[in-house]
């Protein structure tokens, strides 16, 4: 059975065009699978903050996801996305963001702005990502500048309440439907410390027909503490995609649903934390996709 493409698989090529795994790839399937599993073993969460979007495994990276993890989409597209995240059960802790992305040939770019939290704790962010991507892989750099809504008296080099983080990411098509990725969103951090310290995230995506499985491991920034594991399984059916996720530290699950009607895409995910409650993320986007990627 051939995989039917509904979305561009992200960020690699295995699902992106619905093509069967190409035997021309250098890695044998068993080696690639073993590598993916090995990469995913460890421990740590998949952190996200300003541009955390509901992402189904195998779906094309949305503009927000590109900004968040510096993993560019394989195919160029013009897309816009608005999203909102309500964090756990904390009143007022909500992120609203708007992101745009575009591509030309192998060049990829995205920009976005976001606002999180109330006037006392909150902050605003602006992000930019630039990269290249093609059939066999891609890579990008990202930068986010933030400014606290109520800067304290802390003196930092970028001005009161201001912070900067710069990072990058890359992915490679390992063949046989497997895509390997790595993202280090905070390689360089200056000014006020970010709301969440994020370390290196390495992941593996395996797409076969309508199923997609993503495994990820995120190391803590600076090496302190343990890593997180994340596993997500998605099933696509027509314009709908549903996915289930699991994460450790502490163990928790998520349930997501995405739908696309031509250029319009909506998605939502609920993550349940055993103590902190639920985090809900919603997004709505418009995208001009390559012909092959349009839904039937």
């Amino acid at each position, binding site marked *: 059975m051939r995989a039917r493409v509904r979305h561009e698989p992200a960020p690699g090529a295995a699902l992106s065009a619905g093509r069967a795994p190409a035997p021309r790839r250098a890695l044998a399937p068993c080696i690639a699978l073993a590598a993916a599993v090995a990469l995913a073993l460890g421990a*740590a*969460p*998949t*952190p*996200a*903050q300003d541009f955390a979007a509901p992402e189904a495994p195998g779906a094309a990276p949305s503009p927000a996801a590109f900004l968040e993890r510096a993993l560019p989409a394989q195919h160029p597209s013009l897309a816009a996305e608005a999203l909102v995240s309500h*964090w*756990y*059960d*904390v009143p*007022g*802790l909500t992120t609203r963001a708007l992101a745009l992305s575009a591509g030309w040939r192998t060049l990829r770019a995205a920009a976005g702005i976001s606002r999180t*939290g109330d006037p*006392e*704790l909150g902050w605003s962010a602006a992000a930019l990502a630039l990269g290249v991507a093609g059939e066999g892989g891609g890579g990008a750099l990202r930068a986010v500048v933030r400014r*606290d809504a*109520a800067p*304290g008296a*802390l003196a*930092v080099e970028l001005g009161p309440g201001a*912070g900067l*983080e710069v990072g990058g990411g890359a992915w490679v098509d390992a063949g046989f439907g497997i895509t390997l990725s790595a993202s280090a969103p905070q390689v360089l*951090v*200056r*000014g*006020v*410390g*970010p*709301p*969440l*310290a994020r370390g290196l995230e390495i992941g593996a995506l395996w797409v076969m027909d309508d199923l997609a499985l993503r495994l990820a491991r995120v190391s803590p920034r*600076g090496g302190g*503490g343990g890593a*997180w594991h994340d596993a997500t399984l998605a099933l696509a059916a027509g314009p709908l995609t549903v996915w289930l996720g699991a*994460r450790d*530290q*502490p163990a*928790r699950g998520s349930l997501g649903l995405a739908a696309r009607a031509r250029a319009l895409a909506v998605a939502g995910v609920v*993550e349940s*934390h055993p*103590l*902190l*409650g639920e*985090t809900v993320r919603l997004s709505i986007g418009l995208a001009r996709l390559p012909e092959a990627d349009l839904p039937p």
Partner: protein
Amino acid sequence: MLPAGPLALALALGAVCTASAAPGQALAPCSRIDRPIVAEVFYDATGDDTGHEFVELWNPGGAPASLAGLRLEAGDGAGPSRWTLRWTGGAADSIAARGRFVIGGALVEPPPDAQVSLDLQNGPDAVRLAWPDGVTEVVGYGTQAFAEYACGEPAADVPSGQSLARVPDASNRGANALDFRAWPPSPGRENLPDRDVALIPGTLALDPEQPAPDQGARLSGRVANRGATPLAAGEVTVIGAVASASGEDALFSHAIPVAIAAGDSAAFEVATRPLATGKRTLRVRLALAGDGSSADDRDSLRVRVGPGPLEITEIQFHPASGEAEWVEVRNRDAVSVDPADFTLADRGSARGVPDGGGGALAPESLAVLAQDRGALLARHPALDPGRIWEVSPWSALNNSDDSTGIADAVVLRESDGTPCERVSYSAGGVPAGVPIERRPGGWGPSSDPLGTPLSPPRALAPIAGRFQVTPRRVRAGVASARLAWSLPWPRARVAVEVYDLAGRRVLRALPETASTARGEREWHVEGLSPGLYLVALVARAEDGDGSLRETCAIRIEGAAP
């Protein structure tokens, strides 16, 4: 002149000591009435005996008696024939008719007629008078293994502080056990005067113990008829005064309205007028016409009117974290006070003395009196060691109420015994391990489950919602935040955990701890790098199935590492 040798000694002893007579048979007297006799032996003073021991002789005759050549010997009942000389009467030593002669140590009051260190042993032992003419008199006490150490059955051993006294003074019934008994020491005075009223030591008490300045009090005590004859109602008058700079200010005069038989006692209670604020000494004396002994007629009581210089502000009577018991006090005086000048006790009589602190305590400052200073510092390492005193001996505080609803009392006194403060507490409704603290409305469980030693009591204001963290923005590494909760149950167990924005637990700000409905805790923000964190309160009812969780956000400010 009696014959010499063992036979003569046997005859002499037989003349004065025939205590082994058959039941019902009249006993021969132990003492000769033609010469002075032993009236009192004080061999076991409270504490160190040295200088306090004495033997009192009484001359029952109508003519003076010479003591020249009289030997006073001490007998060691541990073995036979262990008599040692303690004193020998000189040519000038004599006793007037019906007079008394005291042989004793340098600390005997009034000074003895003959000063000597007697070094008498506690029973079973004996003293013996050996007259130049061979006549002897033996007074033995304690269970004796050898007949030579007593006349007839020996007297019972007496407790520390009591004399072995001949009561009445002329008793001569043929056995030490019949003639002598435990009695208050009365060197140089009658043991049993015809008329004698005594104020029983230690019975004076003021209720309330620490009256308010504008409040009267009731003084109570107990008097005993130590004379040989009964006292009629109204014969004994209790006279009270308060010591002042000019001497004494009369306080009351109260005639005891009941008759007191010989050997009996009676209680009295007198209302006093309000006393001036501060440390006062109440002096009480008894008046009785023909009182044979005035030495036992007086007593005094140190009292405090109004608050003392130290105030008890927090009590940890049931520690659950190994810090041992402790009591927090505050100097509410206008001048510095040294906690080492006070004693701490529970409802019992043992008083512990603070030691090891940093000297005088400034006005309004707090100090902690601890059972185990090291353990307290280990549990609360941020405390200033200079403000912690270890109290020894520590009187363990009770953890559960008695039938009166009181678990125990914490009693602070000045080192001279003047009351400073007494707090009687109930353990009812206090979660395990939680101290109690003084609040404007009274005593209650501490706002912090671990207590707030060296921190002032706080009035907990109501909070909006169930859980609050204030402030919401703190500087990394140097600041602290206050965790406050308000639960729907009177008693609960609470824990507070901190998560980062990705939901990963970073640290535990408060281990699961018993708490009351309203509680607070100072949280030193340590170990958190800059970022946004979620502080989660998890609480469950101690009785029942209720539980809740509440989350607040806090921003740790700091430059990126």
